[in-house]
């Protein structure tokens, strides 16, 4: 998993799922804030016709923060919504993934979280697939 991927996963994951796994990880590293959690808006853009020039669709809430572990690793958290604790945990995970504990964080937190998020997606996709229309043509009689 690349940094881009885990940051995206942490941004999209349900806050309670992340919190549960964070507790399971049972780590409390010392850190200082580089940027304490801040709630803001990001303007979401679309494209005309789905493929053309950009236009502004509307904003979404995002919470971001940055911290430095006592060892020096810097972690950034960008998460959807207004949950400051989720942003903090995301930044913590991001920082820890750059150090010696990376393997443990990956195994205990990131991989199970990815599985959960994927399972939720698959469940929705399976329901969608069940509503796919199978057309059949009525054959007109010859006589």
């Amino acid at each position: 998993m690349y940094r881009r991927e885990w940051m995206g996963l942490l941004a999209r994951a349900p806050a309670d799922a992340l919190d549960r796994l964070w507790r399971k990880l049972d780590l409390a590293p010392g850190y200082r804030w580089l940027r304490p959690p801040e709630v803001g808006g990001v303007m979401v853009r679309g494209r005309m016709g789905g493929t053309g020039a950009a236009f502004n669709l509307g904003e979404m809430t995002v919470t971001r923060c940055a911290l430095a572990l006592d060892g020096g690793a810097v972690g950034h958290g960008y998460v959807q919504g207004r949950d400051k604790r989720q942003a903090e945990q995301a930044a913590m995970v991001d920082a820890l993934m750059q150090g010696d504990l990376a393997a443990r964080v990956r195994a205990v937190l990131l991989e199970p979280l990815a599985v959960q998020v994927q399972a939720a997606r698959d469940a929705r996709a399976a329901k969608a697939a069940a509503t796919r229309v199978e057309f059949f043509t009525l054959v007109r009689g010859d006589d």
Partner: protein
Amino acid sequence: MYVAVKGGERAIENAHAWLAEERRGDPSVPELSLAQIREQMALAVNRVMAEGSLYDPDLAALAIKQARGDLIEAIFLIRAYRTTLPRLGASVPVETANMRCDRRISATFKDAPGGQVLGPTFDYTHRLLDFKLAAEGEVPAAAKAAAPQSGPVPHITDFLNRDGLIQAEERHDATPPDLTREPLEFPANRALRLQSLTRGDEGFVLGMAYSTQRGYARNHAFVGELRIGRVPVEMEIPELGFSIEIGEVELTECETVNQFAGSKTEPAQFTRGYGLVFGQTERKAISMALVDRALRWRELGEDNLGAPAQDEEFVLSHADNIQATGFLEHIKLPHYVDFQSELELVRRLRAEAEAAAQEAAE
């Protein structure tokens, strides 16, 4: 003109306390939680997010609760909150081609590659009240297919585009104008029109769209494709030097395929209208596409038929229900001085008329 007056503080306080009590309703009935509103009034939540122009289901649920279910009041609350948020940046334009579709239908191609996927739709329901919902009960589980809906589904218009049968959309990433930063001025370009329509009042945009179907600047729209689903939102993070996903939003996208244009030099080609709206908001997205198409008459070299849906100043100036509500409702504020002067004028006119009548009679 309205005039500031003092007094009435106690009456206002008491009115607000009563409002809070009425909002709660009969205390013997359990109170609604925000999660209940978010999960069970999801389409109301979607409308508040779309027209409030802020994607945050929990906040929209709170606004609906606070507004006692008055969606325009809820939208007002969201718009007011939105102005307090620092702007962290703008996303990379979302790629709706990568949408994980819950629903995806085409009215133009039966055998559209990727299939026709109905999703959780009201279509084909009988619109008969379901009294089972009045009683508490278990909901039957939705069916699941063995193989999930797989991968991204191509846009229908891609197929037409490949053969040059539909007008191409030129892809570029120039920063679009933002009507939340600069006041809307006319003529507006298409980016501003689309931003204005996507946050516009659903009823108003629907009415405008309907007028084009009834013949006021008719443009013969087919729903080439309607899709509802989730797309990831990416943003460039300057401190990282690369872009990351910062979340995902549910969107409804409608692409219409409209009457063709052609000339002596250019072969005939279909044209497009486009709707893209936060949440599952199908009626709004279709309406937006029809109105977008009607407003494009100038760039497509069509005649201005004088239809309301072709008049961008009319459409865009009246589509915003918060602006409209603000101006409409301000007339209930004290206009005592204005009215006093009008009252005096009417009295004087009447007195003069009476005097003139008297004179004529004498």
